[in-house]
């Protein structure tokens, strides 16, 4: 019988024979990740476990990206604690300051994750690396501390929902819309404990960056992982990131899927996820009466160079509405530099945008763009939970970079074709 991507990747990292969903396996990990919010707890647990060393100083990544540049004394103290932990245990991939970017944009760009890897991270959006054909999943800090000490973890082999996407994409419809449409179909708990495996001609046609946007939000369907085959595009991306020796990886013919979900995108409009759950998805045209006060373009979901190009193409020669704060946060220093050299910053600044540093910041209501009571944002981020970006009575609408840019111009949720 054939195997799913999840089963095939897990099988490469365990001594046990992988038989199918439900089986609990001990699994070696390729990389262990934590950030400035979750690493302090992981360090505390690691010390409390009595661990004397990390399993591999080159396979632990500590990325200071959430409340950085440090937003207050307490967050600065947390980062200091992680820095000291990294030095004490010789952790090589400790990143802060001018080298730092949003973790899930930074790790693929640095070539630290790739096809066939098993990656565990104390961050729920660790599933992003599924775009490269890695089995990557989020866990809590103490699970991560255990993985740092042991170099392994346990998994229940997940059942897989295959998502087959076909049809022709209309202008301004892209990866963000595809994943929101998927979540609308599964619901926010529909993939709990399961892997999502994306395929079909539309997915094959996407760039690796677009696939990252989709894999990133698998967790918003409750998913344990969001997986893509590693194809020629993946290998080219990984080679450009300085990796070598990566191989193609694909699910077997006749793999046993729990369910096959088919989505035909022909004739579909861009979509928006309305408050307060990511599965509350509507066509953008239906939301045209919603007045917004802020537009955020960035995050681990949509802060990559292609996202910034998409937003700039819409904003070129236009200005944000007077009552809208337009905030652009390129996700890594390399993306920042590329956007600068390509002249995208001129377009953003001419549009009245604030261009900020790489940070998770506003996505989780940390800093650099917090909403007041009653305010509404359209954001390219991944969660629209109550109070996620600020006051409990504020609202977040999730959308693509093109829709976020168009909405900034009009001050209402807007289809870019209507500008």
């Amino acid at each position, binding site marked *: 019988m054939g195997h799913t991507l999840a089963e095939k990747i897990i099988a490469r990292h365990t001594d046990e024979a992988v038989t199918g969903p439900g089986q*609990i396996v001990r699994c070696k990990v390729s990389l262990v990740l934590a950030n400035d*919010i*979750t690493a*302090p*707890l992981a360090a*505390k*647990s690691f010390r*409390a*476990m*009595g*661990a*004397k*060393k990390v*399993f591999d100083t080159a396979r632990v990544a500590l990325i200071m990206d959430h*409340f950085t540049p440090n937003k*207050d004394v*307490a*967050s600065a*103290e*947390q980062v200091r604690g992680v820095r000291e932990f990294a030095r004490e245990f010789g952790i090589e991939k400790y990143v802060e300051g001018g080298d730092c970017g949003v973790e899930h944009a930074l790790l693929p760009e640095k070539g630290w994750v790739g096809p066939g890897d098993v990656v565990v*991270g*104390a*961050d*729920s959006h*660790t599933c992003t690396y599924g775009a490269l054909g890695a089995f990557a999943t*989020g*866990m*809590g*800090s*103490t*699970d991560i*501390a*255990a993985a740092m*000490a*042991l*170099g392994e973890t346990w998994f229940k082999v997940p059942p897989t929902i295959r998502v087959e996407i076909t049809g022709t994409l209309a202008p301004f419809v892209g990866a963000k819309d595809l994943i929101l449409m998927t979540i609308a179909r599964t619901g*926010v*708990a529909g993939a*709990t*404990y399961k892997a999502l495996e994306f395929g079909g001609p539309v997915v094959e046609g996407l760039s690796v960056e677009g696939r990252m946007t989709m894999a990133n939000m698998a*967790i918003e369907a*409750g998913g*344990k992982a969001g997986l893509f085959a590693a194809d020629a595009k993946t290998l080219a991306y990984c080679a450009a990131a300085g990796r070598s020796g990566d191989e193609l990886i694909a699910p077997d013919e006749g793999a046993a899927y729990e369910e096959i979900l088919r989505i035909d995108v022909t004739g579909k409009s861009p979509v928006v996820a309305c408050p307060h*759950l990511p599965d509350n998805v509507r066509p953008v045209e239906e939301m045209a009466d919603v007045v917004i006060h802020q537009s955020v373009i960035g995050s681990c979901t949509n802060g990559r160079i292609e996202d910034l190009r998409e937003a700039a193409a819409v904003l070129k020669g236009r200005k944000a509405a007077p009552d809208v704060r337009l905030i652009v946060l390129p996700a890594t220093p390399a993306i920042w530099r590329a956007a600068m050299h390509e002249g995208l910053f001129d377009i953003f600044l001419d549009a009245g945008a604030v261009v900020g540093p790489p940070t998770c910041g506003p996505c*989780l*209501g*940390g800093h650099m763009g917090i909403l007041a009571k009653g305010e509404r944002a359209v954001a390219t981020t991944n*969660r629209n*939970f*109550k*109070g*996620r970006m600020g006051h*409990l009575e504020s609202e977040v609408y999730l959308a693509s970079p093109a829709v976020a840019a168009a909405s900034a111009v009009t001050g209402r949720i807007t289809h870019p074709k209507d500008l």
Partner: protein
Amino acid sequence: MIYTGKAHKVGEHIDTDAIIPAPFLVSTDPLELGKNCMAGLTPGWVKRVKAGDIIVAGENFGCGSSREHAPLAILGAGIPVVVAASFARIFYRNGFNMGLTLLEVGDQVARIKDGDELSVDTGRGVIKNLTSGEEIVCQPVPHSMQAILDAGGLVNYVKARLAAPEARA
């Protein structure tokens, strides 16, 4: 293990931003986090809770971020058990790792009302509603999870493993 306490009902899809909003993630101390438990749902929610009380939730409790601060905040508020229709995956691991007991009861959650007094037998998977007199039977805590709880959480579980002669670290 048998826990007795008052049920505090919350809804479906209670996310970790509701359990402990991000601005409070500048601490790792359970008691400090516990002061703001459920502040993203209702500010001041924790004031209604006494030590030993029980959260009773709908589907997908703990969805969203991987923050372990969420089960820590619940424990810090003095709540040892969460009963829910179902749990989100990362939260489910985190709960047991931190020593928080979690029981899944599916649709039967409707048979518990806010303020009911409960007696929860985690080993047998039986919840007695002392207010209504009804009894809910569910899956007991799985053995692999109970082993982590018995050790006092994942930290002690790994500590024992690292100290064992065949330890790999």
